């Protein structure tokens, strides 16, 4: 026994030696408080190759794992947009050569692949992501390496980054219009149902603040894990609370279980309608007829009558990897690539700083299927129209409400006095 403990002590000594050696070897690295530390990222020189007649872009979507059910379509629509742009002459005369990466529904993988795309593949910009968690994993990496990331899904706001462009809605373009719609319908009581992650939690925090201002009473709030379908116990609570409306921030297939439990509990769109922010043309068919008659708040619907929408729908239906219907996140992904095209053309370069400088002029626009959107060069979001649609029997949406004009993006809700200034300050401080 004593010999064992002697050996063990040797081992511990060996371990200590290895660790100290490692520390000594790299002792030259920067420490907190050094000058380099204050400057933050010492951005490595970009390795993007702009000499040839092609330009590399990275597409980062979950093609495997739980989120593949949503993100595959976004990946396919990005491929379609790239093909379209290539057919029209490419970006600054260069054909797009895309590198498709799989985020695998795993946030560290999103971070790893972002680094790979920027440092190994040397792409000029990355497009993709779906969940807020994936975006939050990508953010520090693109900021560190001074890359560009285009994010195509509506999200909870309260964020901005010089290295990210947001082509989905922020809260004041989706959630606040939805609340305005509810107020216009005379809704007095509201129940909040969501998946248990960052978007529903933050969105509901904002909804509660705005509801207080509008005089709408929140009569309950329920969360279920993302990968769980059973909502019966929670729906029982909703039925007992008898709200005028249900605000649904559930994501993914959990929505199917929610709608079925809602239907079973005897709740109906006539008496207790649902307004959703994650159910679109893509998701509705999987829920069958039980979702019909409920509402959704988006910026884009397939049923929108704009000049460019028919062409978008037609090209998508003709595309080999098509899912048949168009939806808001798909359209936002489609915008993201064209917005990048407009940006590099305005900048005359693929350089990240030049692109950001071009954005600052606030002149970047794109005739999107949802209408003509304008990029805000300061917060990197785009202006969007607010729409509320009602699901019909064909799983399409009848537009029942529209904002009177395009809504300017306001991720930190600076134009809304009910949002506490000290929270905003803490958040911007923490981000800065």
């Amino acid at each position: 026994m004593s010999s064992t403990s002697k050996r063990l002590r040797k081992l511990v000594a060996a371990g200590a030696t290895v660790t100290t050696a490692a520390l000594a070897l790299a002792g030259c690295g920067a420490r907190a408080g050094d000058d380099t530390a204050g400057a933050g990222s010492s951005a490595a020189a970009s390795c993007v190759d702009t000499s040839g007649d092609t330009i590399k872009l990275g597409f980062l979507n979950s093609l495997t794992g739980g989120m593949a059910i949503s993100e595959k379509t976004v990946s396919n629509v990005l491929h379609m947009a790239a093909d379209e742009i290539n057919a029209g002459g490419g970006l600054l005369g260069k054909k797009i050569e895309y590198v498709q990466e799989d985020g695998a529904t795993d946030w560290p993988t999103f971070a790893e692949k972002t680094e790979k795309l920027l440092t190994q593949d040397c792409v000029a910009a990355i497009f993709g992501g779906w969940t807020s968690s994936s975006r939050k994993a990508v953010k520090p990496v693109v900021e560190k390496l001074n890359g560009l990331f285009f994010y195509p899904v509506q999200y909870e706001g309260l964020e901005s980054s010089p290295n990210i462009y947001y082509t989905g809605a922020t809260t004041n373009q989706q959630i606040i219009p939805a609340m305005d719609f509810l107020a216009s319908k005379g809704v007095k009581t509201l129940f909040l149902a969501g998946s248990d992650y960052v978007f529903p939690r933050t969105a509901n925090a904002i909804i509660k603040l705005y509801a207080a201002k509008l005089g709408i009473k929140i009569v309950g709030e329920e969360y279920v894990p993302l990968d769980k379908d059973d909502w019966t116990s929670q729906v029982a609570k909703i039925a007992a609370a008898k709200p005028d409306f249900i605000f649904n921030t559930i994501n993914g297939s959990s929505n199917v279980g929610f709608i079925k439990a809602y239907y079973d509990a005897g709740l109906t769109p006539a008496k207790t309608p649902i307004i959703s922010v994650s159910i679109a043309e893509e998701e509705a068919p999987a829920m069958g007829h039980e979702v019909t008659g409920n509402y959704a708040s988006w910026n884009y619907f397939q049923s929108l009558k704009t000049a460019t929408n028919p062409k978008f729908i037609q090209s998508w239906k003709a595309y080999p990897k098509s899912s048949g219907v168009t939806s808001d996140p798909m359209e936002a992904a489609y915008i993201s690539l064209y917005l990048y095209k407009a940006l590099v053309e305005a900048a005359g370069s693929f350089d990240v700083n030049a692109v950001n400088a071009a954005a600052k002029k606030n002149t970047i626009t794109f005739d999107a299927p949802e209408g003509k959107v304008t990029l805000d060069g300061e917060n990197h979001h785009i202006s969007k129209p607010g729409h509320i649609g009602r699901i019909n029997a064909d799983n399409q949406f009848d537009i029942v409400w529209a904002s009177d004009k395009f809504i300017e993006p306001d991720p930190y809700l600076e134009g809304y006095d009910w949002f506490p200034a000290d929270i905003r300050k803490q958040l911007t401080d923490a981000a800065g």
Partner: protein
Amino acid sequence: MTKKPWISLGGIGVFAVLLLAVAPLVLTDHWLNNLGKYCCWAIAAVGIGLAWGRGGMLVMGQGVFFALGAYSMAMHLTLETAGDRIPAFMVLYDPLAPLPAFWEPFRGAGFTLAAIVLLPVVVAGALGYALFKRRVKGAYFAILSQALAVALAVLISSTIRETGGDTGLSDFKYFFGFVLNDPANRQMVYLIAAGLLIVCLLAVWQFYRSRFGELLIATRDAEERVRFLGYDPANVKLVAFVVSALMASIGGALFVPIVGIITPAEIGAAASILMIAGVALGGRASLFGPALGAIAVGWGQSSLGSTWPDGWTYVLGLLFIVVILFLPNGLSSLPARFTGRARRTPVEQPTPAIAAAELEGVRS
């Protein structure tokens, strides 16, 4: 193996040179960082090799211990980055509430390092004591450990303000005073991970040579007989389980500064099973098998998962089937197969011995 210890020791030496000297010279920053990540999984895998390969306990919930180390480290780094402020994500959910009480001690570097070592020892000790004394084993033990990992992952996902939820903890700027963005410091973190992997290999090498190692194998192959001989198999298994938990925790702790993010998905069912995949591929009962297998699976995920994402899932699935079906002792048993029976050591004669123990676990 017992007869020629210096061969194994020499192997560890070669491995150390490759990881600590050659890799930093030939690999790009990106791939060195990836290798660092694989090393973290390899550290956990070495522990799984000890518990499963040598001890016969199929630990399907090592994510629990990986999480203890990882979240201890991540809380410390988050606080180090936030300074006097409340971490940014907490402001998002409730700006007025204070820092949760259990975060406070993790401000201290010493407390954090102690927690990374002691938390898994205490938790695995208590859990192992309860389970092994009650003779919970075989499939029951496997399913219970997996259920624990699932439960912990769900718990973390649902306590969003306290733990960051599904998004996890990320965006660390400093590592014990060092700036994480600095390539020199990232190399240092890699070297620590690679160095600790070598230390863990040395530790299990020592274990396997010791009397305890023999007792552990005896417990795996014939628990009842060990009991009849006057030993308490529960204690033997407990030690192996605690050591494997400690290694998983160390792997988790280093995963955080290297990868820069930790989420419940890294500790849940799928992640815990992926840790097993590498061990099965390399060879559960061999010294190098688990570590090399874990590195191989990690590399496969990074490279093949990139070029052929749909295919990688199939490859991973087939890997489980083919390896377990035809090569229960993993790739490391291949040389022995070719050179014939004579050189096979007793531990590498898997099938009947392991089967007896497992059947007992299922049927008794």
